[in-house]
């Protein structure tokens, strides 16, 4: 079963090609990471998956719907979180969740907010303005907003950026638990290789707008003859070849 299908998608901004004819599929219930250096095209790809950005060419199907033409059919079933997109700071946590609950037509909204407040440990500060919370608390609130509608597809842009290791670990654990419980599909853009190794079934390695490699973290590590995803990332980013890849090339 496919959750996302991207076919020959290109996005250009004038003469700049941000994403160049990429194609991939993401299986339902999987966790996939978009990896790449700055300017590799991750955020552009994520924005197109959300329907925020219209591709210059190509097709994107999300949960069975054409994302360019029928995004409003699928938006109620997905959600998104990014440390770079804020929720209104003057509103309290409860007010923020109430507003977004209405936007997502969440049934029994008060109960749902109470449930999330308990799960994500928001109760202590639920009636405090968002602007007065710590980074870790804000991340938990963003998480609650992203889970309000119990989405079938979660798109996360650097979900643990600027979090201390303890909070980051807690967030990762929560996502894994959520996925195990609901069978949701998760797509994340990240620079944190430990996170990717721990959470992801599949990695799409992007460089200069193209997908240059893909596979399960363990397979990629083995293929590049490295010990960690970070080393694989550096090999790709710096056009560096690992001894093992060199060997296989020499053999061929």
């Amino acid at each position, binding site marked *: 079963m496919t959750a996302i299908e991207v076919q020959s998608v290109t996005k250009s901004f004038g003469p700049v090609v941000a994403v160049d004819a990429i194609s991939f599929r993401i299986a339902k219930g999987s966790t996939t990471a978009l990896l790449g250096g700055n300017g590799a095209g991750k955020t552009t790809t994520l924005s197109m998956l959300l329907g*925020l*950005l219209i591709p210059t060419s190509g097709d994107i199907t999300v949960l069975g719907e054409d994302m360019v033409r029928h995004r409003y059919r699928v*938006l109620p079933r997905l959600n*998104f979180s990014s440390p770079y997109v804020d929720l209104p700071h*003057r509103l309290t946590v409860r007010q923020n969740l109430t*507003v*977004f609950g*209405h*936007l*997502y037509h969440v049934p029994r909204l008060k109960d749902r907010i109470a449930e999330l407040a308990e799960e994500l440990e928001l109760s202590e500060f639920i009636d405090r303005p968002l602007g007065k919370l710590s980074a870790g608390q804000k991340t938990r609130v963003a998480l609650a907003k992203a889970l309000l509608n119990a989405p079938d597809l979660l798109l996360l842009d650097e979900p643990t950026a600027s979090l201390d290791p303890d909070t980051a670990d807690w967030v990762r654990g929560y996502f894994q638990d959520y996925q195990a419980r609901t069978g949701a599909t998760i797509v994340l853009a990240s620079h944190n290789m430990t996170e990717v190794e721990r959470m992801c079934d599949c990695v799409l390695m992007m460089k200069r707008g193209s997908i240059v490699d893909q596979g399960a973290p363990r397979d990629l590590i083995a293929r590049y003859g490295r010990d960690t995803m970070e080393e694989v990332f550096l090999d790709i980013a710096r056009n560096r070849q690992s001894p093992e890849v060199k060997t296989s090339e020499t053999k061929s």
Partner: protein
Amino acid sequence: MSPRRIGGLCLRHLYILKGSWPRLLEMAYWPTINVVMWGFTSRFFAQHSSWVADAGGILIGAVLLWDVMFRGNLGVALSFLEEMWSRNLGHLSVSPLRPMELVAAMLCMSFVRTLIGVLPATLIAIPLYHYSIFDLGLPLIAFWVNLMVSGWAMGLLVSSLVLRFGLGAESLAWVLIFAVAPLAGIYYPISTLPEILQVVAWALPPAHVFEGMRSIMLGHGLRTDLLVSAMALNAAYLVLGSVVFLRVWQGARIRGALLNVGE
């Protein structure tokens, strides 16, 4: 269109208003100051001008109705700017909220902001200057609605400019509407303008409304022709404002401006 989503977005703005008395005060402050100032001016003119004396409160009425249009415009633009200031447009854009629902919520909030802004000034004019705009009777509703809709069309245009050119264009929310003021005939009949400007003025709905207001206050009765033309023009401008906003929104989806919008 989903009333629940529209209501949800209105709730977001109402929460902010509820939690911030300085914002509420600011909304009512300027219209009230305006009325106080124009009230004294009006009192002075009444002693020296038969035209003003014949129509008691004509200047105060004009000030109040102009504020309806001004606040109508500002109400739409501020609701949109709030989303940009708080960098919340990205979350709204990936929610099921449709652009038309966003527009509808901005218009609803504009109505609320206009009421909060203009109502205290309207009530203050009664004891201070013995002038009640409610004496206009039922036509007041038609004038109010028409001017507010003119403000909405202008507010949508301003919001489109801000979305297209970024927050650098935000000052337009306050100043652009003043380009219309000299042509709207707020304080003087349209016939005062040079002929070429009269043509432009009659293409603007507020000119029809203020002319209609003067007709009633000078005892010439309700001019339904002016009312009908104001309504027709307003319908056209509101559709135009909405179309421009939706097109700019679509353009922002092509340029990628919705996710990284903000200060």
